[in-house]
């Protein structure tokens, strides 16, 4: 959890129970596509095999603490959407480790976990953020 990164999600609904998101490192025209996230309701999450569930994370803390928000959207409207997101689970995979200064997407993908309680987030990152995702899972490649 020592490496944390700012992430801008661009999401679309596949249906009411699932969204798929592209993750960029900033909201600009030259933003780098650093990963993706799938978001499902608890109902769908519970259908996953037990071996799969550890690669997913809950969104409850991120939403309730305010570190996850919808830039530019008025409060009451944002709240309605975030009420749904708070009850969902996500699988986030990053391919490009821009936080360590990589100029190109090197190495293996990283599965990202979410913040789940106070004290995990670096204070310096708390200003102007969308969501913070410390990593704990590792993909390895075998020949």
């Amino acid at each position, binding site marked *: 959890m020592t490496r944390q990164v700012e992430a801008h999600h661009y999401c679309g609904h596949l249906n*009411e129970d699932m969204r798929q998101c592209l993750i*960029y490192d900033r909201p600009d025209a030259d933003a780098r596509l650093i*990963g993706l996230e799938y978001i499902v309701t608890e109902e769908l999450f519970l259908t996953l095999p037990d071996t799969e569930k550890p690669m997913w994370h809950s969104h409850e803390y991120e939403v309730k603490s305010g570190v996850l928000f919808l830039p530019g*959207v008025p409060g009451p409207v944002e709240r*309605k959407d975030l009420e749904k997101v708070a009850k969902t689970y996500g699988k986030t995979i990053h*391919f490009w480790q821009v936080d360590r200064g990589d100029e*190109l997407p090197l190495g293996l993908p990283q599965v990202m976990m979410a913040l789940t309680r106070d*004290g995990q987030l670096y204070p310096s990152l708390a200003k102007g953020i969308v969501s913070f995702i410390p990593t704990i899972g590792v*993909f390895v*490649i075998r020949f």
Partner: protein
Amino acid sequence: MASTNAEKKGVPPGKPVSLGSQMLDKGAQMLQSLTPIKQMSQHACTFALYSQDMSRQIETHHFVTRINQDFLQCAVYDSDDSSGRLIGVEYIVSDRIFDTLPPDEQKLWHSHAYEIQSGLLVHPRVPEKVAMPELENLAKSYGKFWCTWQTDRGDKLPIGPPSLMMSPQEDIQCMVKPELVKKRDDKYNISTNAICGSRTELMGPGRLNPMADYWREHNKCLAVDVENTEMKKLTVFP
């Protein structure tokens, strides 16, 4: 509210998007700039193979953003309609950039020359003449493609670690199945064979880097696995 049978069988399973969600989405679209995703300037349709099992081949739809002359990033879907599932991400670099990567990194990448020369990669509904400058660029490039949702094997949700994908080559063990190509051709009313004939002058990189398409020289496939690791934490939890 319990799901109906039809909703349970869909891929992914789930209820149709509610009116409330649609309105929230429309509202957000009006208020937010969505700049990064508006930079997608190309749609390419091609085929890819799972590096851990090259008999598994998929039709892919790449929505491409050019970042600079040497680098493109692609959101990859399994179809080009509104129900298309996001199945992965591909990064594309010029041969100039590829040659600077460390060899261990190069092993994860694949070349594009054959895929383009053979007509497997097309820009749907774009005349060949218009697409040609971009095809010339792409023919010399290398790609790194991670697939995160194996819809071809019927997964209703994205399960498992990402798969490293490879590109079609002229080797017999990775030829794209004719029925897959036909299905694509019929959908767009094109002929891959005819297109191949018109691309004879397209050149690949000056020297095809032997570290790309690692399996060809080394007869070894690359599979990704998950390993649990000690979590490094900022604070100690009570």
